[in-house]
């Protein structure tokens, strides 16, 4: 490990030394009185949520649609069996008890909701042998009120589900990530209490439009991490006793390369001085203990209104991939954390006992105390309000910000669910006909099955007949093999394909 840290140290050292040279002459504090009101904060995300009607909706009004179906799971029963039985729109209520299983949800609009009785939660217990507690890929998924512990992988992991709500869960010691939504758009992660995670307690990976709000995260390597994501609001979280508090990263080598438009606002980022116990080789194994907010390569990050105190190395760090010295370089990822914005934050007591790597860098500047804010790149497109209030390194080229708050953006989530269907609105029937049926049926030539033209003649005005046969075929013609059943397509889809099959002319 220590080779990696030493490498980082050397780089920080160089950068720090350079800027130390520039910022060595303290200037007198100039008292300024605002001359004109500042501009309103604007961003791509702000425009998107405004266009979606966020002004007239209540904040974070996203809900999982329900159908009225309720399934109750009692202690001793299986949550997964309930998921299997559930139809989209079902609410699965899990009574207090202990559930030793992995639950996976590959359906849309499922609500998985614990019932809490006098402080007793339903407990999902991985016993140190199960991989993940909850996996979902369906859209419109809510998971709430669960106590999850002792899984090897993640407590709650999403792959590509949009419109998710993960709230009010207690997650204790579940391995790699506590909450890990990935590759989804429009989600809320709120009011969870998470501790004892060897990577990030809350990890938003390759996502768009996410609010991570009002969570308590502690005793983990990283508290909250926003990675290769856009339009993320991290607000009102209590983040303490982690190795690093709040992170916004580009991880190189991922298929979605950008990170940006992240607001880190009104959080308590305090005493993040935990020893780094990350898995060797992971990116977070490079984080120096005592890191408050760390922005690596992520663009347009706004840090506003946080209380950042008692972090023993550095309060806020902006840096490039030199921190990720154990990952291969990705020529398609821009390494710089462009256009950083540091609005008013309360910073106190940071840098009192820097990690060895930071200490080594500081030694070159003949100091032993870490700064409130460091920019190891020395960006020239950043801005900061009231820089004189803080001990900073590398901010010599930062200008005055032209807006003073992002509070005009209440949320980066969209008030209505993202539509589940593609924008192209391609007919289902057409896609099934060409995408599935055409393996055996061509329009006017014999393939494995009879030509579509012949089927048209046999089933004129009778798509129901085609759909029924396809779901449950029998051997009709001696000169063709029996058709394999297409029951994997539901009735509606089969009807759409049948109707399309009857109307095509070539």
């Amino acid at each position, binding site marked *: 490990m220590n080779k990696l840290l030493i490498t980082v140290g050397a780089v920080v050292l160089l950068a720090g030394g350079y800027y130390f040279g520039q910022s060595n002459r303290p200037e007198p504090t100039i008292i300024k009185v605002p001359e004109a009101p500042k501009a309103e904060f604007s961003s791509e995300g702000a425009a998107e949520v405004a266009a979606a009607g966020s002004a007239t909706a209540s904040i974070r009004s996203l809900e999982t649609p329900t159908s009225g179906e309720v399934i109750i799971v009692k202690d001793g029963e299986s949550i997964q069996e309930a998921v299997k039985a559930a139809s989209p729109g079902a609410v699965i209520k899990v009574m207090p008890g202990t559930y030793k299983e992995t639950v996976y949800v*590959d359906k849309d609009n499922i609500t998985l909701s614990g019932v809490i009785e006098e402080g007793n939660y339903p407990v999902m217990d991985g016993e140190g042998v199960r991989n993940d507690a909850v996996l979902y*890929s369906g859209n419109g998924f809510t998971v709430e009120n669960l106590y999850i512990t002792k899984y*090897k992988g993640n407590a709650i992991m999403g792959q*590509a589900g949009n419109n998710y709500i993960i709230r009010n869960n207690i997650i204790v010691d579940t391995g790699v990530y506590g909450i890990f939504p990935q590759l989804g758009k429009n989600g809320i992660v709120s009011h969870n209490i998470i501790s004892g995670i060897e990577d990030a307690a809350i990890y938003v990976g390759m996502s768009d439009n996410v609010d991570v709000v009002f969570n308590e995260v502690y005793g983990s390597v990283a508290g909250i991490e926003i990675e290769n994501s856009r339009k993320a609001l991290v607000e009102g979280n209590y983040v303490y006793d982690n190795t690093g508090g709040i992170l916004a990263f580009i991880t190189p080598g991922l298929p979605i390369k*950008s990170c940006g438009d992240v607001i880190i606002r009104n959080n308590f980022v305090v005493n993040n001085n935990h020893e780094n116990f990350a898995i060797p*080789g992971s990116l977070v194994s490079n984080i120096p203990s005592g890191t408050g907010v760390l922005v690596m390569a992520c663009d347009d990050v706004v840090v506003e209104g946080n209380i950042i105190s008692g972090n023993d190395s550095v309060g806020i760090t902006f840096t490039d991939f030199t921190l990720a010295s154990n990952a291969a370089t990705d020529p398609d990822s821009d390494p710089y954390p462009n256009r950083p914005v540091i609005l008013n934050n309360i910073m106190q007591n940071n840098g009192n006992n820097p990690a060895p790597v930071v200490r080594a860098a500081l030694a070159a500047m003949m100091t032993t105390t870490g700064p409130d804010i460091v920019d190891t790149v020395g960006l020239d497109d950043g801005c900061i309000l009231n820089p004189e209030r803080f001990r900073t390194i590398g901010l010599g080229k930062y200008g005055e910000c032209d807006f003073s708050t992002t509070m005009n953006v209440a949320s980066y989530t969209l008030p209505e669910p993202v539509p589940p269907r*593609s924008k192209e609105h391609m007919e289902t029937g057409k896609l099934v006909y060409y995408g599935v049926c055409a*393996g055996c049926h*061509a329009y006017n030539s014999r393939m494995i099955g009879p030509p579509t033209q012949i089927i048209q003649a046999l089933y004129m005005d009778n798509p129901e007949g085609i759909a029924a046969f396809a779901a449950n075929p029998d051997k009709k013609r001696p000169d063709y093999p029996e058709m394999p059943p297409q029951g994997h397509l539901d009735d509606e889809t089969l009807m759409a394909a049948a109707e399309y099959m009857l109307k095509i002319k070539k």
Partner: protein
Amino acid sequence: MMRSFSLALLLILISTLAVAGETVVLREDCPPGFELTRGHCELRTLYQLYESLQSAGVGGLKTGLPEHRDGFSPRETDLGRYLFFDPVLSADGSLSCASCHDPNRGFADGMGRSIGITGAPVKRSAPTLWNVAFLNSFFWDGRAASLEEQMLGRLYDPMEMGNTPEQLLASLNDIPAYRALFAQAFPAEFTNAAADIQLHQIYRALTAFQVSLVSLNSRYDQYAHGYAEALTENEKEGLNIFRSFVARCAECHTPPLFTNQQIAVIGTPEPEGLPFDPGAEVPLNEPTQRGGFKVPSLRNIELTAPYMHSGRFETLRDAAEFYTKGRGHAVPEGEDLMIHWHVWEPNLTDDELDRLVDFMKTLTDESFKPKMPENLPSGLTPAHNTLAVAGDTRIGGGQQ
């Protein structure tokens, strides 16, 4: 020289015979999976019902695919099929594209390293051509950005098909049947009798055929589209291990294509006796990518043993087991690789490895497998069915 001379002679003899045979007419309809729209074949799949984040084509079950190539005419596609199977494309008429990309072997060749025209194994294994329409880089080290660019390497590499552009054009233009077929496929460029076959037409037709090789109707796909019974309990368990953050397979072999199309340094061993392959370090000129290779799609992976860039692992289970034997355990002494962070020590059990194999086998679908032409326009005999027997080097990836 001898070789090209004898090929030329052979072709003259054969094509004289072929002229007497019946004229081949190229197909007017699109291959399965494609809709004929204004003269072009456009891909149709149920995955077009779905979006994907940032249109990147990676995600979970109901996720749209990455951008793809399509839009070729039925005739271009069908001409590409003839060319693909025709050994006339190689310098001595001994190899066709299908020699290393055999439809009966998952469009690969069942070998650790493919055998080129010299009879010696080449550097790496032949990847499958299923779903190449969705890929944005080609070769194991990702050095080509298009199928057209990729095929130049294969056609003209002296270790592979050994041809030259001049000889390729001369061979095809000497065959009246091909002149007729190219005129059908490219009517706008054959407006007079003197028009010759041109290289760009060859490349376009081969590309058209290759992008028609679509495999998206596996049992996994049925499950993904919502049919829960498509997979057995063991297979579903395998899917959950596959996408779990313990095994982490799905982080790089990401649905729906089961690759995220990135380069990853994972540190797999070479077959015994072979030197370490620096992979993407060379084309990227980037030392941190030493030993990096493209993440391959796992679709139809059951059909394309042996596995990894030079075929070190004979079975899917061996390939899966590699990931649980320790981060960097097979890196040769003296190599200091930037092993990918997702390669860690997941401590998968034997049962979990078995379930992963069960799941990977649900990704098999050959329902759109094209037919081999019954007669080749060159009159040559298809070469790909005989070669694999002679060059079978599955174990250890080619000691010969």
